């Protein structure tokens, strides 16, 4: 992604708004945009979802391949996440090999899902030491108006929850739903105008500072954290964010599970 020159005017404007605790689109500090989740949107994927949050739109597709298990874990399948942030989704994203930002997006989404243990890797084993399913999750940005992290993470879980293992097509048993035991959810916060806000717009990201991503499991266990970009935050700030994340992740989880 080309780093846009930060317009000082935008930064000043955001700081002014922050003084009266306002945001560009009138939302409160910890108010998220409406989230619309649709599943079964991709005809060629074994599980899929489309998530829209304001003008941010993303897709997630789950595909399966047969892999040889790793020698140290002969009875385990595999899980891989790949984030595609192609130039279709915004003027600021450029063509070429995946940028560090896109790689970070994919890896942070991957960690939250993997570490929650929501996918039983042993269940993906077909023949110990020889054959196992590899779950490949591709998240794809269609329109980036900020907070691709949460949009990707939400779409990812919705797609995984509807995925069908294509046993028949690969001639290894019957088709069956991918067992997903938990629904880890991500909430992201950006420093805008001096304080942290939830679910930043693209313009808030451009004119803002560091960001924090939190993934929480069903039981509020923490499964992944990531601090991005330059900046420093206090323990008190983190506590405030974490408290909000606990309630918001539960809301998002309900949305995905129903």
């Amino acid at each position, binding site marked *: 992604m080309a780093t846009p020159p930060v317009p000082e005017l935008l930064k000043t404007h955001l700081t002014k708004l922050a003084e009266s605790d306002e945001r560009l689109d009138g939302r409160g500090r910890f108010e998220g945009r409406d989230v619309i989740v649709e599943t079964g949107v*991709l*005809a*060629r*994927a074994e599980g*899929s979802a489309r998530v829209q949050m304001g*003008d941010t*739109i993303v*897709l997630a*597709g*789950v*595909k399966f*391949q047969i892999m040889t298990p790793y020698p140290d874990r002969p009875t385990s399948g595999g899980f891989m996440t*790949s984030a*595609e942030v*192609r*130039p*279709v*989704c*915004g*003027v600021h994203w450029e*063509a070429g*090999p*995946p940028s560090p930002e896109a790689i970070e997006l994919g890896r942070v989404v991957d960690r939250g899902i993997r570490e929650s243990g929501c996918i039983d890797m042993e269940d993906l084993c077909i023949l110990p030491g020889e054959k196992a399913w590899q779950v*490949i999750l*591709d998240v*794809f940005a*269609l*329109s*980036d*108006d900020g907070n691709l992290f949460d949009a990707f993470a939400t779409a990812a879980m919705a797609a995984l929850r509807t995925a069908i293992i294509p046993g028949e*097509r690969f001639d290894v048993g019957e088709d069956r739903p991918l067992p997903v035991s938990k629904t880890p959810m991500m909430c992201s916060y950006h420093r805008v105008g001096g304080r942290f806000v939830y679910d930043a717009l*693209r313009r808030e990201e451009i004119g803002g500072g560091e960001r924090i991503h939190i993934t929480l499991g069903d039981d509020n266990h923490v499964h992944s954290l990531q601090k991005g970009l330059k900046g420093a935050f206090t323990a008190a700030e983190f506590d405030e964010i974490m408290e909000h994340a606990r309630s918001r992740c539960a809301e998002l989880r309900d949305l995905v599970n129903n």
Partner: protein
Amino acid sequence: MGGYGDVQMIDENGIRVDGRTAGEIRPVSINAGIIPVADGSAEVIWGTNHVIAAVYGPMEAHPRKIQKQDRAVLDVRYNMAPFSTTDRIRPGFNRRSREISKVTAEALESVVLTELYPRSKIRVEIEVITAEAGTRCAGITAASVALADAGIPMTDMVISVASGKINGVVVCDLNKEEDNYGEADLPMGVCANSGELVFLQMDGDLSPEEFQIAWDYNMEAIAPVHEMMIDALKRSNGGDE
């Protein structure tokens, strides 16, 4: 081209596997303005194909060496999403997508008034979300609508359709099953108003007579799709103008 003559894809009444007649195209729907952050955008759902196009610009062309002193450059990218096919596609450019990007750019350059924007660049991003044979045609059609949606001046709109041959019979707009056993493929990009061609490819085996039928089928499909494009633009831009 597969050329498996023993698989019956057309019955004795000339009805194809999905119930279409020889000259019939798949169901098509077109929407414009589907990507809020883009300057122009469109989606074409053509059978099971789902292709999205976004347009950004005109904008400054950089690096400078790609600038043209007398016109804008069209920076076109055709890409298939990893989940667009039965077997996952590894992300990244390949020879096929590069060639399709190139011929698509040249087709669109023939209708966009690039000389109005010297030294600038217009980005056209074509993303295949779901593929079912004929994605390059759907991509060109989607890109035309997206360019118009972005307000880029054009002399004409390009509609692209392919005809081919199965079981020795010429048919219009092959679907995936037919394409697997297809004996020829003739994709064309036609300007809606002038009737001129700006995109043409072919592979396979067609006799002079068969070639003429395939050509005519493509030409007949242009007008109805053009109607849908105009309708999509009217809907997204809220009005009849």
